[in-house]
């Protein structure tokens, strides 16, 4: 049995989408931020870093979004290339790019005081915005030129759900003029539109109140 430590519309939603798509039985342990769950010794035994997501597995606890997604792909043989697949190298490259470049820069847009201090939030948000735009352009170009089956409109994949949730935040959370317009990335938009229409995504969206188009129309 898998236990996901979760808060709605946080990064753990990415893992929940993958679990639903894979139809893996799991339980949700809701994290109480205000109650300080993340700082308790019990939680730190599961995730020593004190963040969500964390996933308890039969081989021990896991943390970090990309790590959990990769472990689930390898466990099920679904939603991404396996270790013997010729696409594995490209998939790993873009998964870690999404994790340490796109995800990290997105967090800097939402919490610019963390890398740069309270006095520098505007400059930090502007710099992170430029990074996010450049990185989304790379992803959009990659989809257009390589048409990878692990990030496509034809079949679901962990990377589609990962980028989908990041896009949801990037298109709704930052103040103007820093909000991202998904129309600038039409190939990515088509992939995310297909992902959000999946029954698994619709189940999660309904349960978490994410709307009927959680990735492409996060504000509606």
């Amino acid at each position, binding site marked *: 049995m898998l236990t996901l430590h979760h808060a709605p519309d946080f990064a753990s939603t990415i893992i929940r989408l993958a679990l639903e798509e894979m139809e893996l039985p799991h339980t949700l342990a809701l994290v109480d931020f205000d109650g300080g769950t993340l700082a308790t010794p019990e939680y730190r035994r599961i995730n020593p870093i004190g963040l969500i997501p964390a996933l308890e597995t039969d081989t021990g606890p896991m943390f970090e979004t990309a790590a959990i997604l990769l*472990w689930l792909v390898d466990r099920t043989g679904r939603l991404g290339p396996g270790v013997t697949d010729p696409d594995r*190298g490209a998939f*790993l490259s873009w998964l*870690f790019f999404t994790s340490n470049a796109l995800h990290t820069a997105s967090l800097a847009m939402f919490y610019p005081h963390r*890398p740069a201090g309270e006095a*520098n939030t505007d*400059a930090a948000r502007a710099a992170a915005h430029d990074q996010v735009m450049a990185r989304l352009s790379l992803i959009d170009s990659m989809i257009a030129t390589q048409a990878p089956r692990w990030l496509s409109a034809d079949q679901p994949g962990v990377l589609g759900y990962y980028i989908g949730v990041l896009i949801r935040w990037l298109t709704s959370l930052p103040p103007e003029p820093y909000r991202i317009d998904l129309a600038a990335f039409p190939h990515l938009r088509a992939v995310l539109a297909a992902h959000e229409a999946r029954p698994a995504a619709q189940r999660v969206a309904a349960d978490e109140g994410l709307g009927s188009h959680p990735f492409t129309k996060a504000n509606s």
Partner: protein
Amino acid sequence: MTLTLYHIPDWASSIIHLALEEIGAPYQIVPLDYDAGDLSTPAFRAINPLGLIPAMDTPDGPMFETAAILLWLNECYGGLGPRQGEPDRAAFLSWLTFVSNGPHVTSMAMIHPEYAAGEAAAEEVLRLAFEALNQQAAHLETLITTKAPVWLSTHTPGALGYYLGIVLRWAIYMPHDSTLRFSLAPFPALQAVLAAHESFPAALRVAEADGLGPTPFTAPVVA
């Protein structure tokens, strides 16, 4: 199967260089010159569209991202950490990703503190990154002292030891403000793991080839 590593010594490609030497995979190196604009050429962008080091050509096509290449090499050759289905794979993946998102990103912020919010904020960015890296190192110290993982130990070379060795090396000697340079002294278990890693035969060969000095991880000496 010959692999091609696009390389600048003491950049992140040195991490991959260490891993390639450790596993004994056949590889060749293509040296790049940042100042000559080698990372911006169309030929290099065809290999890594990000225009960053490391990048590696494989028989299945080009790869980039340090953690991705380390994982792929381990899947193909072994010898760098737990593989799929092996005990502790879940923990290894978690901590590898943590190093990629945490210490690697944080160390880069200490080297280039002007990137996050411009020159005016660089001093504050460096100070915050210094604090963050010390927190991240404390998490690693606790991991080693409480779990004693084989894949980050003094007796077995591994991807994570080489990865941390290089990114912490940068934070130890590169920041302009000498009061905000990282030190391993508060983290003796981590220091011991890195001291062992810099002494493994593969590390000695790479240190020689890349000009990293005699103690590249624990006491980097700038040539």
